[in-house]
């Protein structure tokens, strides 16, 4: 087997550094030593897949997991999963989780003094279709306070976890809502230096997916690493031997 074409490395500053001191939890958890750059081998260009057998088609609707309707503003979040080359990523798993409309998670660690909603858990999953599209139904999550600094509040957000085709395309991110006044103050949102890259985490309000009399639509496209056209070249050692 000859050398393998790997997946592209992100552009500088479009991804967060591990250490971002305004996000206090990163201070004692970020590595202090530079990461060891390595080429992609067969290990990095293969990865787990989760076919339709592992997916519950009803799990794309977070408002229908109980007998009653959850409280909150009903939303449709949809978009496409593409790679950097603009190609759709078909049949890939998207996992989502979020707070309820009051800003409370169904999680034992979340002690925010806001009510749980007996009709809302806040997790789901979707498999993209053959053209990389996904669509979920939910309610708009609430903002919530956290202990990072005085009077810290997270803007409303939905967590997304994607595998993509291989180990190197794994991505976990958060989607925000347009016009949220908390976004500019959020150290997690701000952890990425490149402003355009950061702003792409803010979904777009979308009339096309808005359902009259029922739910507001938001569009959020997700881009995963794309494949290089040519194999990685091993750097020559000194002397070019």
């Amino acid at each position, binding site marked *: 087997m000859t050398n393998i074409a790997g997946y592209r490395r992100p552009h500088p500053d479009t991804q967060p550094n591990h250490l971002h001191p305004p996000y206090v939890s990163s201070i004692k*958890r970020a590595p202090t030593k530079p*990461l*060891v750059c390595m080429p992609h081998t*067969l290990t990095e260009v*293969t990865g*787990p897949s989760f076919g339709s057998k592992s997916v519950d088609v009803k799990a794309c609707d977070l408002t229908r997991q109980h007998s009653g309707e959850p409280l909150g503003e009903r939303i449709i979040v949809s978009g496409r999963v593409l790679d950097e080359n*603009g190609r759709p990523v078909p049949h890939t798993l998207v996992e989502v989780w979020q707070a309820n409309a009051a800003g409370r998670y169904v999680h034992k660690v979340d002690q925010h003094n806001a009510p749980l909603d007996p009709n809302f858990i806040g997790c789901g999953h979707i498999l993209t279709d053959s053209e990389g599209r996904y669509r979920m139904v939910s309610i708009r999550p609430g903002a919530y306070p956290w202990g990072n600094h005085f009077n810290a509040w997270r803007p409303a957000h939905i*967590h997304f976890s994607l595998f993509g085709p291989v180990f190197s395309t794994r991505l976990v991110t958060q989607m925000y809502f347009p016009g949220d006044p908390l976004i500019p103050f959020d150290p997690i949102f701000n952890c990425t230096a490149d402003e355009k890259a950061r702003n792409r985490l803010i979904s777009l309000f979308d009339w096309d997916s808005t359902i009259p009399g029922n739910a507001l639509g938001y569009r959020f496209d997700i*881009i995963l690493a794309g494949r290089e056209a040519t194999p990685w070249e091993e750097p020559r050692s000194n002397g070019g031997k």
Partner: protein
Amino acid sequence: MSLETTTSQTVGPYFALGLTRLNKSNLVGPGVSGEQVTITGRVIDGEGKPVPDAMLEIWQANSHGKYSHPEDTQDKPLEPGFQGYGRIPADADGKFSFITIKPGPVPGPDGRPQAPHIAVSVFARGLMRRLVTRIYFPDEAANAGDFVLNLVEPARRGTLIAKKTGGHSDTLEWNVILHGADETAFFDIGL
């Protein structure tokens, strides 16, 4: 057309809500061949404290050195009982444990075999992007010539090699130290 990969964000403290469904700490299904191992350890922060809100994901080949993925075109057998995927959350003491088989060697650059290894992604509150590392096996002659292991400075290679516990090669210890003088070697593979 050239787009930019979406910015990574932390999994935060509440990821168990969305990610528990695919937890898998026993990778070994029925009829799987190879040497079964239990790998146990802890995720530790820069103050030596356990990290309870962390999660590992595993990706590895089967005992023949074959990945369950179409990109692996090697003429080696697949086993339906072994997919090579695991997802293991840390517990309240930062501990994790999983059962797998020791993978066979897979090809590396220029077709040279790599030493048996397990690819690991570490996710946690406080990590804006995952940390990627590898687990190698003790008493493995191929470690000395492994291309990836040799990219790591010698003093840090030991952080990637699991240790036998109680003299048993089927019970290994491997820890993830996120930050500090003894921190685990992490790789840059892109994201």
